[in-house]
């Protein structure tokens, strides 16, 4: 039945999500749903999601309300502080599940079953409701209960082995990049599961293994696996950018990344502004870029041109000549960049403890169901009373849950 689009605040307005995720990956998945308008109720321990203890903190003073990591991954959610080990927890969870369209959780495998609120119970009570379980290695297999981290997961599942230089240990990506990627895959699982429930009336339990989502994802890993499978060739560390025009190069004020410039010499000549350079037949020969002398000559020419120009000058010439290039910006440079400012990339919010926070906003732009704008991340237990009231508890029951320390409320 068509609804009035004016009433819809975001594509997922009206969708209720019970969120039992913590740390990074699961919360990023539910943040994407919450920012798109879903009502995401985040159930935290009484001490808060452990990510509230992760920096960066405002002025470097650790406080559960000033964690930058918690803030980023929990925008637009509501917070209910609930002690899962309290005897009242299963009943509270049951009532919350009764009102949910989707449950997303990243607890230890089997934890919700212990509470009597695992998939079997959900599926029996609410056949159209789905549950997404985000775990390190999956809900099955010999490593089911193994522990992990960003580094452990990326090293095992992602293509970390070949990152870095051969004389040293492999090196990972920044921060929690792999967990964020995997969280993004968990959001796909969540939306697929929601669709199954709404369209076919069938709730699904989706087992999202962070390790599997690294192995099955799109960065270089699949290609390196296939190279060995097809031809017994390995992807060696530090081999990614040797000898050709695919590398990070220094320029006058920093660095630029260029890729495969030798594949389109016409465009490279255009970028360099010297059609006579590299015009000699030697450069068109098959295998020219495997010849160390020619490669040396090529690199000297290219680096000499680059070092006389700023990264923005290089990028402008590359854009004009359609050469694959990107300047290496710092976050501060990006923050000041006019292209992203003009496009509305940034969003500013005021937060009770952090003050004004300006961070990247919408993940994409939807023409007919516009992004409603992210709200600040919740304070711990900020919405406990409201959420319990909506779940059917009266005022005295709510105060009793708080008094018995089943629930925390700010």
């Amino acid at each position, binding site marked *: 039945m068509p609804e009035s689009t004016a009433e819809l605040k975001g*594509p997922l307005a009206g969708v209720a999500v019970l969120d039992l995720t913590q740390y990074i990956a699961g919360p990023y998945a539910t943040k994407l749903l919450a920012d798109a308008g879903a009502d995401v109720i985040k159930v935290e321990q009484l001490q808060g999601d452990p990510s509230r203890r992760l920096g960066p903190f405002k002025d470097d003073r650790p406080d559960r309300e000033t964690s930058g990591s918690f803030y980023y991954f929990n925008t637009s959610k509501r917070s209910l502080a609930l002690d899962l080990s309290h005897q009242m927890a299963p009943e509270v969870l049951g009532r919350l599940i009764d009102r949910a369209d989707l449950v997303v959780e990243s607890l230890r495998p089997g934890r919700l079953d212990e509470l009597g609120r695992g998939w079997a119970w959900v599926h029996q009570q609410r056949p159209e409701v789905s549950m997404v379980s985000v775990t390190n290695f999956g809900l099955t297999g010999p490593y089911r209960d193994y522990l992990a981290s960003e580094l452990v997961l990326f090293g095992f599942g992602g293509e970390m082995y070949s990152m870095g230089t051969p004389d040293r240990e492999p090196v990972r990506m920044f921060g929690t990049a792999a967990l964020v990627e995997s969280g993004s895959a968990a959001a796909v699982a969540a939306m697929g599961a929601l669709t199954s429930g709404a369209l076919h009336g*069938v709730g699904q339990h989706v087992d*999202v293994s962070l390790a599997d989502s690294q192995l099955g994802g799109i960065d270089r890993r699949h290609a390196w696996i296939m190279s*060995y499978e097809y031809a017994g060739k390995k992807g060696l560390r530090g081999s990614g950018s040797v000898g050709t025009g695919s590398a990070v190069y220094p320029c006058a004020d920093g660095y630029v990344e260029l890729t495969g410039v030798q594949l389109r010499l016409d465009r490279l000549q255009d970028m360099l502004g010297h059609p006579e350079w590299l015009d000699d037949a030697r450069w068109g020969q098959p295998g020219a870029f495997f010849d160390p002398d020619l490669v040396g000559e090529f690199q000297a020419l290219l680096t000499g041109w680059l070092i006389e120009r700023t990264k923005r000058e290089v990028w402008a010439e590359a854009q004009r000549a359609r050469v694959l290039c990107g300047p290496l910006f710092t976050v501060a440079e990006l923050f000041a960049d006019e292209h992203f400012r003009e496009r509305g990339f940034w969003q500013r919010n005021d937060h009770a403890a952090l003050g004004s926070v300006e961070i990247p906003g919408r993940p994409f732009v939807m023409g007919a169901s516009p992004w409603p704008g992210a709200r600040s991340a919740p304070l711990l237990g900020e919405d406990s009373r409201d959420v319990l009231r909506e779940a059917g508890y009266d005022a005295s029951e709510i105060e009793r849950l708080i008094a018995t320390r089943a629930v925390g409320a700010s």
Partner: protein
Amino acid sequence: MTPLPLEGVRVLDFCVVWAGPFGTMLLGDLGAEVIKVENPFVMQPMTRGTRAHPDPASIQAPAPAGAWPGNELGPRPWNYTTTFVNVYRNKKSVTMDLRRPEGMELLARLVAQSDVIYENNASETLPKLGITYDWLRSIREDIIMLRAPAYGSSGAYENARALGVHLESVMGHTLLRGFADHAPTETTPIYSGDYMAGTQGALAVMMALWHRRRTGEGQLIELSQAENAAGILAQAFMDHAINGRATERRGNDSYYDAVPYGVYPCRSPGTAETGDDRWISISVLSDDQWSALAGAMGEPVWATPDLEELAGRQARRDEIDRELAAWTAQFDDYELFHRLQAAGVPAAPVLEASRVHDDAQIQARGLFQHQDLWDDIGRYRYLSPFLRFSETPLTVRQPPVAMGEHNEYVYKQLLGVDDDEYARLEAEGHIAMDFDPSVP
């Protein structure tokens, strides 16, 4: 039988390289009918390889460009290039030459029967052919179009060409990864932006389908790959936002100052030169995990009580790393992995890609499946869907697709083309399973 979540949704795929094809693959895994629309006269750069007819000498090149099934280029190399073959499962492929009016007429007939158009070309590419949201909408009012250009469909960088590696440079990732004492020129090109754009493109399409079911409205979605990749740098953006501070790169060290947290050597059958060096990653995220690690090491004398708290470990970080490395180097990586996990310490081997098929968990999860592709190139293991749905398992309904493999299905069953017209379209080159000889 319960349908797959996206059964009944038809997606036309105009995607290139990785970000787009990964997104449509996820939609295909979830049950959508994804049809790649390809042109036998145009080799999309870095999409089915770099050349339709690769230099035979290229089989000498290193991985992945120089890796071909059984070390032979084979009859149609574009159907099984290492770099792209794994994003072509659960898709169909049709060919038509969209540079000719007749090709565009055929496309219009296909659009009329489709729900989603998904593309990630440079901003100007599809409009030059006449494929715009307005044109699609004139054919089907409730069409959903997703465009995923590198930097967006507006602004100064609208037409800048990019792969994942460039937009990560622009967004700040390249300066933020790698060892603190390495120059940025030593970073390895990676493509985490493709992962983000692929997953979130699929997410955006499903949100638009959700909206369409409620309201009947289609829409245009614009996903700037650069902007979308921002989540990868969450902590750096937050530190800038709340403290005005520039984040420094710190190699494998924990962003959150957990100690020890790093990659340590194991007994190795060889060196990095042949891909035979072995490493284990170990992350001690709590004081309890430190006690577990100290126990697993047999309580060495250097593990004094001051290390039982994080501040003590931070104060002696370099020494801990040295001692730990000397200890780990005595062990086989898998032996140490299971031993540490049994003790309650997060750890795992840093797996070189050739070893994934031997891992017990990866085998138990059935992530790889043998498939036969077009042209009998041999039976090899390819990736299968990695999301596990309980009621309707996601399977490989179609192995990585050959260009034009579904021409008969699309032309005859969907477009109602009869045998005579099919033969004519084939003679005119719209319908083909090979690139035109003019394509390099």
